[in-house]
């Protein structure tokens, strides 16, 4: 599983990355977490409000920082889909 955290590096993006790492650890997933800071790449995903979360090239969340529990659910849903 490849997880991408989209955001230029503002506080929200760091919070999202932290929540994502915690959720991945909780679920014991085998996932790589990448940060995407390039604006063209971020916009390319159709994301207009950062931060954004992309799981296996699918945008699953934009525009807010979720709780760890919410990220867990998003990741669990994405795992079930794969």
């Amino acid at each position: 599983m490849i997880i991408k955290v989209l955001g230029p590096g503002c506080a929200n993006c760091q919070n999202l990355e932290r929540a994502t790492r915690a959720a991945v650890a909780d679920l014991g997933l085998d996932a790589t977490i990448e940060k995407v800071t390039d604006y063209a790449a971020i916009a390319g995903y159709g994301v207009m409000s950062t931060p954004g979360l992309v799981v296996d090239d699918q945008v699953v969340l934009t525009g807010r920082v979720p709780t760890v529990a919410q990220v867990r659910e998003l990741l669990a849903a994405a795992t079930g889909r794969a």
Partner: protein
Amino acid sequence: MSVVHPATGTGTSNRRLMATLLLAAAAWVLAYAVNGRIWDAVLTGALGLDREDRVTESVHFFLYDTVKIALLLAGIIFLVTFGRSYLSVERTRALLGGRREGVGNVLAAGLGVVTPFCSCSAVPAFIGFVSAGVPIGVTLSFLIASPLVNEVAIGLLVSMFGVRIALLYVAAGLVVAVVAGWTMGRLGVQRWVEPFVFETRLHGQVIDPSLGLTFQQRVQIAAQEVRTILRKIWPYLLVGIALGAVIHGWAPQDLFTRYAGAGNPLAVLVAVAIGVPLYSNAAGIMPLVQALHEKGLPMGTLLAFMMSVVALSLPELILLRRVLKPPLLAAFVAVTATGIVAVGYLFNAVLG
């Protein structure tokens, strides 16, 4: 695919949430009501200080203002964020797509006020708007209005100067955003936008963050936003209030009026020239504006100063430089600043 929702609130947890909200509202009203009296009691009663003394007066001003502004901000941010959770940049873009300039600029400025938007998203939003066919001038109207007419500024203006001044500020901010965006659209600015903006191909599915949220989640988001914003702005706020307190207690009555009073025709220009490079936010600048107003500075000059601080800042320009070439960036600053100066003179004439 949609955002996964946690279990929808059951009856009991919704009732508990409503009870918490009611309690919080009651605590807020109580704290707001006793704020001034508490500091009176602490300073003059418990510590035995003299209210006529300058230091005491400044300390009282500082304590009272800090609590008052923090309470107001928390309340306003909570309500506005809750309301805005029903809107999103994605929805705004859909509304703006295919609009012509003129009408589009007006709509964009209005939406800029109500759409939840963080200036750190200015660049992806710019790309997203332009690649969806929103004209550049219309996009710029949105980007100008969004920071200029924000809930923090409006809330503080209402509390310090009343509804009339706040409405004037909102109207002025919208006019500046509409006219500045429209003007830049007329300049044929297409060639001054970095080419990668037009080359960006959108893939992936757009998710509207305003959809699929429960009432509880919206409350949660609003409470979180209050924490985030207060944590971000408290240093500005404290510096602003401290400066305000010093001016309140020490600055001679005629110090500012002599140089920037109604008698000086250049005052608005100077205020905007000082305000543009200054970087603060509405919360930090407002206590200063209030103290200067007490010292007799005209409202138009002060509102222009405030707008220039809030609307134009170096960090924002550095962000926008990623998508705008220097000539357009310069036009952005020049046109917006000109609009603000015009508004300042207009207000001084109308309110004078």
